[in-house]
């Protein structure tokens, strides 16, 4: 199985990024509250920024999917977060990674950025679809949630630019070499 060929260094980087993304989201939520539009923008922006950096650092097929699986396992162990979304997120991750391969592979910077944008869009859309199944009796609530998700996605798109800038800084520091 191709997972066995992963060096421990890359597995550790995925774990560290999963932790940073979880903690950064919590810190931003603590600072600004969950229903604050500014918080939503910032939280999603940081999320995609870090995902872009992760893909630059670990350029392998399966990085996004592994990141999702690890976050889900630790989320279930430590935070009781919704395991119900896991299948949808894995589908989103695999589709995004297939698209990255189609758009030029992990060596292509634009493909990485577009892949993260697609992953976030698919993840959010599939989650909203699942929410519709769960809350179809309350369409007003779903519309509100959709608006919040749309605000969040705007933050994600801004985060893509942030990710590229971040990688540039990391190259200056010699932390990202390619």
């Amino acid at each position, binding site marked *: 199985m191709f*997972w*066995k060929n*992963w*060096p*421990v*260094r890359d*597995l*550790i*980087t*995925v*774990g*560290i*990024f*999963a*932790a*940073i993304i*979880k*903690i*950064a989201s919590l810190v931003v*939520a*603590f*600072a*600004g*509250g*969950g*229903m*604050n*539009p*500014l*918080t939503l923008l*910032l939280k999603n922006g*940081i999320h995609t920024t*870090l995902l872009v*950096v992760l893909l630059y*650092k670990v350029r392998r097929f399966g990085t996004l999917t*592994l990141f999702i*699986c*690890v976050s889900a*396992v*630790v989320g*279930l*162990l*430590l*935070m*009781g*977060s*919704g*395991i*119900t979304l896991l299948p949808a997120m894995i589908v989103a991750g695999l589709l995004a990674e297939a698209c990255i391969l189609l758009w030029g592979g992990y060596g292509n910077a634009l493909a990485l950025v577009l892949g993260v944008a697609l992953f976030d869009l698919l993840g959010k859309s599939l989650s909203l679809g699942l929410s519709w199944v*769960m809350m179809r009796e*309350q369409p*007003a*609530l779903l519309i*509100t949630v959709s608006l919040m998700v749309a605000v969040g996605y705007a933050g994600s798109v801004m985060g893509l630019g*942030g990710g590229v800038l*971040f990688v540039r*800084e*990391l190259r200056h*520091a010699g*932390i990202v070499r390619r």
Partner: protein
Amino acid sequence: MRALYVDSGMLARSFPATLNVRTKLALCVLSSLSAIVLSAPEALGVLVVLSAAYALSTRNLRGILIGYLLVGAMLGMSVLFIVLLSLIWPVLSEVEMKTLVAPFLRIMLMLNVVFGLALTSRIQSVLTALKSLRLPGFIYIPAAVMIRFIPTFASDFKQIRQALKIRGYPVHPWALIRHPLRSVRVLFVPLVFRALRSADDLAMAAELKAVGGSGGFTRMRQESFGGRDWAVLGVCVAAVLGAVLLQLPHGFGSGMH
């Protein structure tokens, strides 16, 4: 690499430090499942009281109080913005305000059990416990690193905050809200830089310890599953059953989140 907090004085002698890591992980899983299934405040309340006693037994009163204050502040901000949004969208106030207690209790429950695990466990014990769950290496290594990284992240944050104070930058929630871009630049960027350096250090340490290798390991410390662990698990299962009984009159439909 910096040592885990378990090696520092009082915490090493605390009650959760004497428990097997598998017991602490089992408490986390039970609490997670309870947080997913339960929604009645009285059912969650019982578990929160018990988990608070468990968290307090780590003897890190200051850290726990800060955690509680942060959760309270986060929910306070959420309420404020719900009130503001309900002026534009009245249906939001009907739905959200009455369902705010259960999420708060869920967060408190998970915060308490995570304190017990993260602040009193050695990374090697967590690795061994995750491996004993028969999880594949590509899942358990990043998962263990993720848990191990919590104290390192807290230490990095403290150092960066001190550096910012010396340079005259205010580091408190209000400053984060007032200047979000500046906060990202002076706080978040250095944190990621340090995290990436930690990743390199951890990777080197892991390679030297042959983590991920296929051979068998000889453990320095043999962790036994004793009577104390069975007793704690028994109390925990009884408490969850009690909470389920309290949940029964309310039904289980609205508990999923």
